[in-house]
């Protein structure tokens, strides 16, 4: 370390060394340093990304236009039904609204939506200035709910009020508000809810298909390809499985405490994680027959994926990967997946990873691997070069950086090209990594 690293950032960078671990671990779950080129987003962003995949919801952004523009149909989550969520609704607050308040405009906006369409569910996101100008969006939403007898849920998500993780939490609370009025006493609980998968490139469908095959009923998908009608059934599930732990563990905890639905954390990235996740779900909710079916299924699928992987492994000999993703759980899965491919992870970081995620990360990687929390392009560049990474896995802001350095890139975020979950995802991921690392373009550097 040293040159090129802000003093305030040094605690957020760790180089694994099993001999002299200082025991403190990495500094994480803090706000970004002022003046840093942070790759991170805000509270509103956190809330929006979790709720956006709910396909028949009207997502109204209450604030100036920007926050609506930047989040218009960018998530890449697919729908098997409605596509209302792929439109952008906002109150586009202007100077006069800032002076006189925006409550009336919000009320009118909801009226106009009701006049145009037949909404069942509306989310109202209050962005940075709404609280400052004193709008009471809870009152507006409540009045609209009563007036039209529909579900209008306020999400008070000013960007400055915390990190993206707080936004996740707000989204989870909003989902609870959708679910709770539909809880009935003495419901028979059967099947599972899938939490924290957003159906990017159709990944939810892949996973749902597995549960179909092994005979486990899927009640609600939260929030990938979700709709109001499926969400309100969520309380009838007997188990929650949580894929994107960073965003959805809080929801799982609340559902456990308030609806008596236990949860397990799963991951469908890589052969190892997919297999163990399916088996754990079968053990938890299935009978002996289900378990046997699952065992056969995962064996078959693993074999196909492994055989496929074997063909490509020689292309990956000696290759090194850098990972910079949103949450800790995805980083962990990716390290495992790269291990399966024979690729060593030399740099790994997350935007919102938690202490326990970083502990697992540290236990998975080899000595000398650089671990980063809330990093910036300068640090990424420095460590990727130092560690001679051949590929970076990240999101849209990291892509041009990798390319500028002449490093291959795979988008594991909103702009992923192919489904990367499940066994199909292993095949897609392997092909994508192979394609980018071995593209002819690198010959012309």
């Amino acid at each position, binding site marked *: 370390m040293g040159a090129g690293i*802000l003093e305030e950032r040094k605690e957020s960078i760790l180089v694994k060394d099993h001999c002299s671990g200082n025991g403190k671990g990495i500094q994480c779950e803090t706000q970004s340093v*002022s*003046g840093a080129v942070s790759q991170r987003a805000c509270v509103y*962003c956190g809330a929006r990304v979790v709720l956006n995949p709910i396909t028949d919801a009207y997502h109204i952004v209450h604030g100036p236009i920007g926050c609506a523009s*930047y989040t218009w149909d960018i998530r890449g989550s697919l729908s098997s039904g409605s596509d209302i969520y792929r439109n952008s609704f906002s109150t586009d607050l202007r100077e006069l609204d*800032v002076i006189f308040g925006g409550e009336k405009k919000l009320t009118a906006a909801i009226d106009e939506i009701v006049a145009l369409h037949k909404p069942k569910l509306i989310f109202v996101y209050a962005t940075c200035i709404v609280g*400052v100008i004193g709008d009471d969006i809870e009152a507006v939403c409540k009045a609209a709910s009563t007036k039209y007898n529909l579900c209008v849920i306020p999400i008070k998500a000013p960007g400055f009020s915390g990190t993206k993780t707080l936004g996740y939490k707000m989204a989870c609370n909003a989902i609870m508000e959708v679910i709770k009025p539909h809880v009935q006493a003495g419901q028979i609980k059967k099947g599972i809810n899938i939490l924290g998968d957003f159906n990017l490139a159709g990944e939810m469908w892949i996973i749902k298909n597995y549960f179909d095959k092994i005979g486990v009923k899927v009640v609600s998908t939260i929030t990938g390809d979700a709709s109001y009608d499926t969400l309100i059934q969520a309380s009838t599930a007997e188990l929650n499985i949580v894929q994107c732990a960073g965003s959805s563990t809080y929801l799982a905890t609340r559902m456990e405490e308030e609806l008596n639905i236990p949860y397990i954390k799963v991951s469908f990235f890589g052969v190892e994680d997919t297999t163990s996740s399916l088996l754990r779900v079968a053990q938890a909710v299935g009978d002996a027959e289900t378990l046997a079916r699952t065992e056969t299924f995962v064996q078959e699928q693993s074999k196909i994926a492994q055989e496929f992987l074997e063909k490509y492994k020689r292309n990956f000999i000696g290759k090194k990967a850098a990972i910079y993703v949103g949450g800790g759980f995805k980083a962990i899965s990716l390290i495992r997946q790269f291990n399966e491919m024979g690729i060593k992870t030399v740099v790994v970081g997350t935007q919102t990873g938690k202490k326990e995620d970083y502990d697992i990360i540290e236990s998975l990687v080899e000595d000398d691997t650089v671990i980063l929390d809330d990093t910036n392009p300068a640090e990424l560049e420095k460590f990727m070069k130092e560690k001679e990474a051949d590929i970076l896995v990240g999101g849209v802001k990291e892509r*041009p*950086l990798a390319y500028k350095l002449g490093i291959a890139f795979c988008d594991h975020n909103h702009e992923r090209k192919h489904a990367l979950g499940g066994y199909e995802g292993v095949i897609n991921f392997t092909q994508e990594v192979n394609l980018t690392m071995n593209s002819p373009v690198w010959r012309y550097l």
Partner: protein
Amino acid sequence: MLDLTPKKIVERKALRINPCKTCQPVGAMYAALGVHRCMPHSHGSQGCCSYHRTFLARHFKEPAIATTSAFTEGSSVFGGGSNVKQSVKNIFEIYDPDIIAVHTTCLSETIGDDLNTYIQQMDIPEGKIVVHTNTPSYAGSHVNGFFNMMCGFIKYLSKATAVKNGKIGIFPGFVNPGDMREMKRLAKLLKTEFIMFPDTSGVLDAPMTGEYEMYPKGGTTIPEIVSLGDCEKILALGELTSMEPAIELKRKCEVDFDSLPLPIGIQATDAYVMALSHFSKQEVPAELEEERGQLVDIMMDAHANFDKKSVAIYGDPDTVLGLAAFVLEMGMIPKYLLTGTPNEKFTTKANALFEKFGVTGCKAKANGDLFELHQWIKNDPVDLLLGTTHGKQIAKAEDIPLVRAGFPIIDRYVHSYMPLVGYRGAMRLLELICNALMDRRDRDAKDEDLEMVM
């Protein structure tokens, strides 16, 4: 699919659906990236900066670098003074730019942060500069942010000395680096000494070198911005974008300006070329005469394929007006012109264009949105869409070909490298339009109607 839009038009007063604009700060960030060794700084929540960088990265496919004050609850109550001061210190220490260009956000504006005072109180290292501009996200659009940032640089830096520098200042407007390169090429062909401001060429279209340069070679230099005050004249291209900074410079340094439309199409390019020629007192070189002749030649060759075809154009005001002028020259009908930017000058200018070319039944609207455009099209369709990526859903729903032009284009490549301006830009535009229309004819043709020669 993707067809939420009802045909029946009901007036909306509060609800914005599918916007055709975004907020000021992203424009300010883009303008600041056009200054050499400048770090754009977003004074607001960290999400703003992240969204703007992502937005720019999606359009330019380049790293768009900027820093943020990263507001907290505390800063929203007590003001963001300490955040921006700490930021500036950190930025100079770690990223070492020559200049930091601060822009505000809706939050810092609403809580009333006074950047003038904050900057005066800062401990700025010797030889380094901090400038700022106010970009309240609830006023104007990203276009305002772009010219406000230009005004900010001018206010802080431009100076008139006793000696003129013999140069013409070119304000290119909110265009791509490819356009700026073409504008500069034309200026060089006319042997004009010029300063282009801002200039994102060489920054957001920097070549692959295997190195990541936080500050690539391009961008207007600080001495050049200072020297704008000594320019003989300014060419403000795109009245709705470049006029404000030209007025600012006139006020501060008494530099005269000519306001011209963006040089898209024949007449607008002619006007640009003539202005340069008039300034440099050079004849228009044969090379340019040749390009112009080629453009007219192509228009003649192909005119039967686009004559009287109707087109809906949407995006930023000056870009839409420029594109409209060119399609009118081509004999097309710009049936709908729409911008999200609230500025009634747009409608006035659009109507003047309709009148000049004698077309009727065309409609122009400022402060509109794409939902409304979609409704117009549902009621009375067009042959072609010309504008940003955000029209893609309309194109799909109505099965109308879309030619991408303007900002942002987040679903295609290469566009930011290629000009729409100048005679060459017009040739490219014509090719894109003509191909889109003719590809559609081929696609729709029955087997027996498919023509090999067209």
